[in-house]
């Protein structure tokens, strides 16, 4: 028996100012395997929203469908940027997702070893350079100005997250916690409306996880952004999320505040097994 807490979700994709991301009947099949089935929920603007579920529940698949690393077999993902038209994300190529103000991080931190930390951040602005190929071949003066602006922004963000002294070294060999922070810094470069975090606490100890929670809250407040995180670590996701959705076997089994979801029987069964 499924318990479901009604949240303010419109069943057709009508928008309310509240909603920034909307999943409608999202389904992903790999051959005979259905990884995600009929997933429907909304994320409200400005909230920290968590997606939880046991291993193999379909969290990562859902994540990849939202960020367009997979194209969903069925269903739709809608994004509602502030003061702009609705975006049907299914139609957006994976490398264009950033243009709408959505950025994601990776569970296994994906940084570029052959660049410095500073340069790693600068790559996020690649699409904003004017005539990038001509500018790069001939080191045109306009590109020098663009570079200076991007560099400045990156340095500010690094300072904001306490990473300034790493700016000129390669991320290779840095402590894991620092690398995760660098990925967060990179995500902030474009002043995103929506940041999607892929198991940000993976591999962190308790103290580091608390630090991460602090950082996430700080980012949400400073940047006025919405945070969607997929996470395994219960204390983290229950501690910082405004609302949480729980999935198992690719299906939504509960949605609501952390308190509410924690107390749902279906969620308990999913994690602890039925008695």
């Amino acid at each position, binding site marked *: 028996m499924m318990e479901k807490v009604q949240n303010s979700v419109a069943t057709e994709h009508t928008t309310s100012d509240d909603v920034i991301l909307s999943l409608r009947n999202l389904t992903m099949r790999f051959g005979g395997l259905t990884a995600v089935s009929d997933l429907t929920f909304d994320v409200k603007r400005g909230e920290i929203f968590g997606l939880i579920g046991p291993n193999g529940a379909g969290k990562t698949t859902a994540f990849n469908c939202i*960020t367009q*690393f997979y194209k969903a077999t069925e269903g739709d993902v809608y994004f509602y940027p502030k003061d702009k038209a609705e975006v049907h994300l299914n139609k957006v*190529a*994976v*490398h*264009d*997702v*950033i*243009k709408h103000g959505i*950025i*994601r991080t*990776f569970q296994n931190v*994906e*940084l*570029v*070893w*052959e*660049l410095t930390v500073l*340069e*790693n951040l*600068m*790559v*996020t*602005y*690649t*699409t904003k*350079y004017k005539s*990038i*190929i001509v*500018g*790069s*071949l*001939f*080191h045109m003066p306009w*590109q020098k100005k*663009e*570079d200076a602006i991007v560099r400045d922004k990156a340095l500010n963000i690094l300072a904001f997250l306490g990473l300034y002294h790493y700016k000129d070294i390669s991320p290779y060999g840095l402590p894991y916690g620092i690398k995760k922070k660098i990925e967060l810094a*990179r995500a902030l470069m474009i002043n995103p409306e929506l940041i999607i975090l892929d198991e940000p606490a993976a591999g962190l100890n308790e103290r580091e996880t608390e630090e991460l929670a602090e950082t996430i809250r700080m980012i949400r407040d400073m940047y006025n952004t919405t945070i969607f995180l997929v996470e395994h670590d219960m204390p983290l996701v229950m501690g910082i999320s405004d609302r949480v959705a729980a999935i198992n076997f690719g299906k939504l089994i509960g949605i609501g505040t952390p308190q509410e979801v924690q107390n749902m029987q279906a969620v308990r069964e999913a994690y602890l097994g039925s008695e």
Partner: protein
Amino acid sequence: MKKTRNLYQYIGFIVFGVALILIQVLSGARIISTSVTRGFGSYMIHVIIVLGYFLLLGYAGLASLGTAGFVGLGTYITGYLLLHTPLPPLLILLITMLVGVILGFVVGFISLRIEGMYLAIITLALSEMLSVLFKNAIGFTGGTSGLNTYGAKPKLFGLILLDRTNTFYFIAVVVVILLVLTYNLTKSPVGRAMLSMKNSESAAQTMGVSSLKYRLFAFIVSSVFAMIAGFLYMLYYRYSEPTKWTINLSLNVLASVVIGGTGSIWGILIGTYFVFSLNDTLLTNFTFFQQNPNAFIFLTGTLMILVVMFYPGGISQLIFTIKYKGKILLGKLAKMRAEKKEALASQAAVAEVALSPSETDQKMKEGDEHDGKSAK
């Protein structure tokens, strides 16, 4: 700081070009033998091929074994146009570059579907197909007997006859230009985008770097470089034949990039010299290498294995290590000098202030008397 670093590199490239031009000048004055000069002519042409490959493999991370076919095609198009059309050489260059763009486009598209080793195999297959074309399209390429342009007398801008000497100078100028362009790319947003694509395609896509755009770009640039090299080859040697454009050349280009390392263009220049020119310009002066012309291949192969296993950064890594250690050494010397200076200065200061024992007693006496009280 960044501005001066770029400036130094540019100056370095120009000095490099001037040095090469000097070789030809000295050859004219009979100070350097023609065979050595020929060796450097060959060197310059191979530098161009390797630079293109360096961008493709070292920056975009795309494996290709098709380079030889493209260079060969460049030679044949150039040769054909020189013999059968009145087109001026610069226009012929433009045409070969355009063909390079088209080919790069095609292979770039193919690369979206095929990764890594399989891409290398496909590009090798392409090169082999071109090789078959070279052998059989006798009307175009002269088949296995080769194509020569001895009859053509191309004039640059209609004025300068491109004989061996002038062509050498022309090639040197082209090399410097391409060095500058390649360097510019490595220190630019495009270079960073390509490296991000090489290291992690997922991260690159998240950051807006389109695989399609940058793969196409990488293949187009390397194909155009290969075409330019082919064009210059034909101008310089005035002869081309299918046996020259085999996997042998492609593998040697790969070896140059591996041995040279992808961290520094100077590493690439040294690596290319080692693989393609060391033998002809230096080692053949020694009888051992004269008697054993294949000994050098042994050397190249061994060096490749050693580099890949123990020193993956190649010669570029060596350059950085030398620079780094050099900086540390200079820092230490400067520190030592500063400390020594300080030691001398404080010695002098103490000497000024210190008095001899008798002087000290005298001063104390004077002080006591001044106080009006005698301690004794």
